[in-house]
């Protein structure tokens, strides 16, 4: 009996000692959070580390120093990436319930939003993040422009960035149809009508995207495949390349002044600042999603165009404004803006980085951004369908032969006026 109680006390003591040791260990570890937790788990200094040298890699990453001029304005790229991850997570969650067919799409979203716990949140997160993603991306581009970070040796990364912008546009253009309500259906129908009017490849592109005589279930399948299968992989590839190049070239030098000092350490300063910003951005997105849900328009009806449609996404508003005021020129103009952005690093060879010496190109950039914002504002809210519909082609009715079997006029011809027939 005594032995037993002794053993029990011994066990208790040894347990207390081991816990105490580990607590001491945790306290003593130089870095009390990430590295400490990893060490506490015995992972990094355990058997895996002996083979892979994760410890060294992590230390190197944590010791990385940012250039001294890096500040909050350098954060927009990261915010864009964070929002992209939100889109991936919420998008994948939605594919568990969404059914990409004309018969079920609308009802499956109704079901998701009304019956599935937090289904409404996931959907509205996806909706609001899409809008904020564009804003964050534009601010990121503007920073790059101001810092002249698109200049040598970073032209490639600028081009990759422009491609990523194109991908975001494509995501929006394909995602907008998926709710399959009247707004979605008629927005896509009208925009495809204008795509069809583009010269050379317009007809072919519209045909490929529609996959039917009108926007139908076939179109929905295509849009879903592009939105949820093809585009994500392209973006992942481009993003990897984008980040590799950032890592390779480092943060672009400040165009204004030389900063002294060693610069901020990645850990803990930069990581903490990223954490603060991410939490803030996520809280904002969650707030927007719960306060302003995207309303439901009636189920898509190809036979009954609505009087008005409401664009629910920034880039749709921009396209609709372009179409409304510029008609057939709207879409080519958007293409021209894209081309300007692609070509700018190739034409702007002025090696001077100071903003004062690059007034021309900065004006172009701010002008484009201002135009974008004005178009966005002008195109939000209800839009009359007649304003954005492509006018039907004017057909000369005299050229339409409704009666293919045209017969020569036989029988007696009518008399000319005043010609007496018989009699006097």
């Amino acid at each position: 009996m005594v032995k037993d109680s002794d053993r029990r006390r011994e066990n208790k003591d040894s347990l207390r000692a081991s816990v105490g040791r580990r607590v001491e260990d945790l306290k003593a570890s130089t870095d009390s959070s990430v590295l400490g937790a990893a060490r506490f788990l015995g992972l990094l200094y355990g058997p895996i580390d002996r083979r892979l040298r994760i410890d060294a890699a992590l230390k190197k990453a944590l010791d990385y120093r940012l250039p001294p001029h890096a500040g909050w304005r350098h954060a927009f790229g990261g915010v864009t990436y964070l929002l992209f991850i939100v889109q991936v997570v919420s998008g994948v969650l939605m594919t568990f319930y969404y059914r990409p067919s004309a018969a079920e799409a609308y009802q499956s979203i109704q079901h998701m939003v009304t019956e599935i716990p937090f289904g409404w949140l996931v959907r509205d997160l996806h909706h609001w993040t899409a809008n904020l993603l564009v804003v964050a991306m534009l601010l990121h581009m503007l920073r790059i422009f101001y810092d002249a970070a698109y200049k040598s040796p970073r032209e490639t990364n600028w081009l990759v960035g422009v491609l990523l912008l194109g991908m975001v546009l494509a995501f929006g253009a394909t995602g907008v149809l998926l709710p399959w309500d009247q707004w979605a259906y008629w927005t896509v129908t009208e925009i495809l009508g204008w795509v069809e009017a583009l010269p050379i490849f317009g007809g072919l592109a519209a045909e490929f995207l529609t996959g039917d005589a009108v926007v139908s279930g076939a179109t929905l399948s295509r849009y879903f495949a592009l939105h949820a299968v093809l585009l994500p992989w392209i973006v992942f590839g481009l993003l990897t390349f984008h980040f590799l190049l950032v890592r390779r070239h480092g943060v672009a030098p400040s165009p204004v002044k030389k900063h002294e000092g060693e610069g901020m350490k990645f850990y803990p300063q930069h990581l903490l600042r990223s954490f603060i910003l991410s939490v803030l951005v996520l809280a904002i997105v969650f707030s927007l999603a719960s306060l302003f849900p995207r309303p439901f328009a009636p189920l898509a009806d190809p036979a009954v165009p609505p009087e008005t449609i409401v664009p629910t996404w920034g880039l749709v508003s921009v396209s609709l404004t372009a179409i409304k005021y510029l008609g057939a020129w709207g879409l080519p103009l958007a293409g021209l803006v894209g081309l300007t952005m692609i070509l700018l690093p190739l034409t702007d060879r002025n090696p001077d980085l100071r903003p004062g010496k690059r007034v021309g190109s900065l004006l172009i950039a701010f002008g484009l951004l201002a135009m974008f914002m004005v178009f966005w504002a002008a195109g939000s809210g209800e839009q009359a369908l007649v304003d954005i519909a492509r006018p039907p082609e004017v057909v000369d009715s005299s050229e339409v032969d409704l009666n293919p079997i045209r017969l020569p006029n036989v029988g007696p011809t009518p008399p000319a006026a005043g010609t007496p027939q018989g009699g006097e």
Partner: protein
Amino acid sequence: MKRLRLFFAVGALVVVSSPGNLLAQSNRDRIDTSYGCVTCHSENRANFLEGIHADYGMRCHDCHGGNPRSFELPSAHSGRFIGAPNKVETVTLCASCHSDADQMRQYGLPSGQLAEFRTSRHGQSLLVEGNNDAPTCTDCHDAHLVRRETDARSNVYPTQIAETCRRCHEDAALMGRYDLSTTQYADFVSGAHGRALYEEQNFSSPTCIGCHGSHAALPARPQEVVNVCAECHELVGRAFLDGPHGEATNTGEMSACLSCHVSHDSEAIPNADISEVCGACHEAGTSAGTLGDEIESLMIAAESDVEGAEEAITELRLAGQNVADALFRYQTANTYYEQMRMAQHRMDVDVLEELGRRVASNSNEVRNTAEIRAERRWEHKLMLLPIWFFALSGIALAVFKLRESA
């Protein structure tokens, strides 16, 4: 290739020149050079060929007589010849075929027009009094261009009838002679029936002839009004006749529907005006005046119940809710409300109260559904409190740590 083309050309010629050519133009494009009337009267030919009489093979001499094989006067106008018939002769002429039931059967046409015309104010005036101001058949139907009544261009097509009547009834000089007003057309167009017809293309809405009759045209006599209106507003008419006003109408104390509604620019009386309309005959404070107030308040309550349900459904729809059940309830509520609108003509508060209860219970069901959803929505928003609490705490900790490490 050339040979093939020649073959088709010859073939086509053979087809079009064959006597029984099915593809040849219809009669109206042909000119029969052996028919004498058009030698002088070509101006009437085009109109006549557009009309239905030509479609059935009638020609000038079927009405006008004479000798169509002659090209000269006087032989062309010889025999049984009627040149330009006067108004009375016109009636006789048209009636010679149109009053013959045996002949009209094949066209599915009634044959009582002349008998009806004799009873009308127009017919009395023309046939009895010999008044040439009165219209004859051709004044409404045109002499030569008589179209099918289903032809939208016809003078007697639903959308054209008021235009046809207006030609005389808006003529102040003509109507002044008979002490008749000239505002009927303008009133009709702006009234509920005119709007239904012209704006909603609702062809079950009555035009002039729907209430006054066509050939037997006459304003309804006071005792007849309720029957005229009840042709369409059947349940309203029944409720009206069952109530105290029905009795008063039978005894000639009031002129039925027209005591409260007006004739040509007819409108439903808005619920808010009910007691005011009652007040025109019944003094406030009397039992009938109080009854009017009660009916008004019941109707207003029911109307707002239905509107509330409608708003609730819009709200549910925008939130992506399945509204099938709510919609069914709303339609039930709306049906009871429509029943109230008819039943109020019986002046029976008990009936209205019972129907009003049904409107309310069904509407409230819909509104409750929307309220429950709104509450849930509010709970969603409450979720923001913990989110911001944790977010701000996290940020505060991070800021603290950042200061410490700097």
